[in-house]
């Protein structure tokens, strides 16, 4: 059966919503593009808070004599930094911001299928962010339980923020998940049901494949976090013992008893590991498109790239316990998860090969987006390789509590996706604002960020190898554990971290400065094929595509096609309208 033969729907599709007031147009907008910008700005705002927290932590580690923050505050900052970066920044940016902006435009739809729900999704996300942020100002401050919120310590006295901070964190996560589910439904159904004529699933750009698969993952993985958050709230507020074992606190027997902290870990990581790919898959998709566009070459192994995205998505649900090797699990259990972890490296490596093979003999334009893509490939490769170390039980056990782990996940899940986000912003900024970002500031931003990140995280691998423990507020004076070279290295890392942080301020300045003073972007400045660049107006207006929706005649990777005059053919141009080079009778066919 062909997918093209689809019977008429039972119902006419919903008409495009038109705002009736300034409030519904600019604030409570139902236009996915504005919602995307709202998501993006909110995520960056709270992400900036997390960045500042990391500066405090770095200064504390490098210069403990300054005692810039207390022990408790250090743990609170670690916790908030981690949770904000992973959930409230990266997930919200990739799915909420890029998802909202790109899905309707790239699949040829006027908007998301449920615009009202989409709007509610953003405002729910904002409430979640505010609830989390409020915890900074409550008695006891935010939770200091670590971003994984492991019980029993997360809700016990002695852990900072156990009064209200932990409750606000859990409530905020629940609100976030409810909000995300509304958005996620929209993303999935828009991709499945609102593509324009001719846009088959396999003609969709890989950006959409990445966002689609990540959204499906998130819809099925976030419930695990919801379950663990609700159960821990019960333990905290109603004194149940889902996760809480029998405990003595400050010489007093607590009423808890019999609960299983390990159960929490299973639930948390059943969410937590797919979460890695919820962030990574959209990054994979975006980077594939950016590389193809800026190397003027079709993506190498397109089908394999799609299969790899889907395969990684499926496998991501059976690797979670590799985060728990030191929890005392059965060795056979550990063996199973080590094996699945190594297996998931196969499609991931396949993607890296394909990016490199796309670059091979490509007409590489070293634009800022391309620089970020190149930076991503090496960073992801580095982070991925150390993942193979940690995926093996026997190597993980000695390295688990060291800076090696910090280096690994910051490389693979921090820097790598952030490089993609930044590259994507430079790439799509002309579409969103109609202006180009300042090139000089952009290049300065890239080089400081890229080199600076390596100066931060490369030495951390060494620190890990020599056994410097992670999570410590200060290292003390024991030379055997903490050598003077390690102390010097920590100072070095902190200086690099502050420099990278400063470079991000340049980026933020560039975003706002260019919106006003930037060079006006020509139409489709990167000469891309995908539909978002083929709108009548740039930036696209409400409804995206003028009177008629585009019709798609090709995949998104027709770059440097033999016989075509231009080195790209937009997806909505039929073969008859392609200008041919002299000497060709049709695309790919030379005159004999």
């Amino acid at each position: 059966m062909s997918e093209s033969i689809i019977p008429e729907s039972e119902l006419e599709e919903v008409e495009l919503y038109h705002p009736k007031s300034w409030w519904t147009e600019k604030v409570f907008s139902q236009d996915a593009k504005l919602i995307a910008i709202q998501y993006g700005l909110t995520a960056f705002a709270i992400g900036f808070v997390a960045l500042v927290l990391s500066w405090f932590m770095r200064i504390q580690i490098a210069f403990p004599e300054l005692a810039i923050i207390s022990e408790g505050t250090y743990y609170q900052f670690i916790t908030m930094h981690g949770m904000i970066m992973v959930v409230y920044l990266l997930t919200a940016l990739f799915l909420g911001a890029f998802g909202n902006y790109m899905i309707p435009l790239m699949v040829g739809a006027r908007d998301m299928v449920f615009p009202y729900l989409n709007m509610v999704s953003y405002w729910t996300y904002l409430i979640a962010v505010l609830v989390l942020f409020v915890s900074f100002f409550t008695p006891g401050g935010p939770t200091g339980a670590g971003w994984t919120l492991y019980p029993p310590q997360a809700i016990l006295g002695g852990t900072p923020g156990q009064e209200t901070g932990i409750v606000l964190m859990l409530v905020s996560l629940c609100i976030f998940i409810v909000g995300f589910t509304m958005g996620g439904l929209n993303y999935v159904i828009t991709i499945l049901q609102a593509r324009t004529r001719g846009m088959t699933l396999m003609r969709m750009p890989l950006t959409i494949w990445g966002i689609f698969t990540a959204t499906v993952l998130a819809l099925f993985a976030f419930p695990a976090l919801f379950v663990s958050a609700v159960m821990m709230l019960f333990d905290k507020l109603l004194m149940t013992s889902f996760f809480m074992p029998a405990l003595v606190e400050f010489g007093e027997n607590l009423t808890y008893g019999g609960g299983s902290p390990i159960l929490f870990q299973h639930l948390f990581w059943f969410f937590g590991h797919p979460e890695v790919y919820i962030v990574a898959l959209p990054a994979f998709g975006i980077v594939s498109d950016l590389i193809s566009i800026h190397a003027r070459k079709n993506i190498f192994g397109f089908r394999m790239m799609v299969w790899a995205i889907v395969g990684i998505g499926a496998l991501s649900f059976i690797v979670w316990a590799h985060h728990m090797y030191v929890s005392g699990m059965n060795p056979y259990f550990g063996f199973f998860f080590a094996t699945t972890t190594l297996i998931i490296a196969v499609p991931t490596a396949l993607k890296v090969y394909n990016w490199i093979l796309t670059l091979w003999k490509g007409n590489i334009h070293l634009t800022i987006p391309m620089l970020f893509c190149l930076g991503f490939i090496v960073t992801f490769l580095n982070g991925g390789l150390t993942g193979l170390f940690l995926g093996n039980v026997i190597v993980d056990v000695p390295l688990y509590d060291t800076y090696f782990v910090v280096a690994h996940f910051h490389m693979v899940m921090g820097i790598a996706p952030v490089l993609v986000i930044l590259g994507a912003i430079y790439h799509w900024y002309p579409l969103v604002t109609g202006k180009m970002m300042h090139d000089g500031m952009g290049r300065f931003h890239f080089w400081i960020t890229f080199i600076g990140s390596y100066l931060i995280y490369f030495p951390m691998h060494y620190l890990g190898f020599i056994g410097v423990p992670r999570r410590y507020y200060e290292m003390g004076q024991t030379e055997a554990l903490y050598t003077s070279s390690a102390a010097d290295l920590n100072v070095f890392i902190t200086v690099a971290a502050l420099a990278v942080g400063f470079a991000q301020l340049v980026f933020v300045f560039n975003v706002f400065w260019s919106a006003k003073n930037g060079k006006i972007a020509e139409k489709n400045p990167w000469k891309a094929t995908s539909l978002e660049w083929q709108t009548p107006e740039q930036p696209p207006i409400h409804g995206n595509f003028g009177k008629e929706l585009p019709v798609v005649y090709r995949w998104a990777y027709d770059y440097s096609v033999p016989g075509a005059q231009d080195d790209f053919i937009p997806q909505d141009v039929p073969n008859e309208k392609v200008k041919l080079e002299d000497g060709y009778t049709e695309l790919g066919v030379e005159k004999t």
Partner: protein
Amino acid sequence: MSIFSTLSQKPWTSDQAKIDDKHSGKSSSMPLPRVALYVLMAVIGVLFTLFSVAYIGRMAYGDWRILPEPPLLWINTGIILMSSFAFHKANISSREKNNKKTREYLFLAGALTLGFITGQLFVWRELVSFGYFVSTNPSYAFFYLLTALHILHLFGGLIAWLFVVFKSFEQEDETSNFLLSVNLCAIYWHFLLIVWLALFAMLLLT
């Protein structure tokens, strides 16, 4: 078209392009609300499954006590079964364009749902009166948690039910839009019935 044949397409070839050019852009002929409901039910299904996995995981620990089974639970199960059946009848009546009967069945389904929720609250009261508090044992805590979550989902359904009831008073109530709304409500109620039966069976068996 199966996912495997979709994934094996070669969209860059001219032969595939001839097929793809005719594609409507939709993956299914189902209307959007129906697709949305199916995806939502899948997510809710995962949520309850994970709670059940946690339930079974927690059972393995020594402090687990067997939950008493108040007979009222059987009555409540009967009530939710009838409510689901009433939705089924409303669905049939709406297809037969019998608006009056549809509305009657809708009211009946709503009333029975409220009856079920009230019944569940009575079960809670009964358990509390026996001293089975939420913090007494994890098995009781799970009972309160799972039933509360199920009730919350029913409340969500009741909001949709209210919209459908209002629609049934409108003049254009015979449109396919109305039929679809009744149908989707019925599907959601059947789904929540299945969720409840699964939870109830789990509670009985453990």
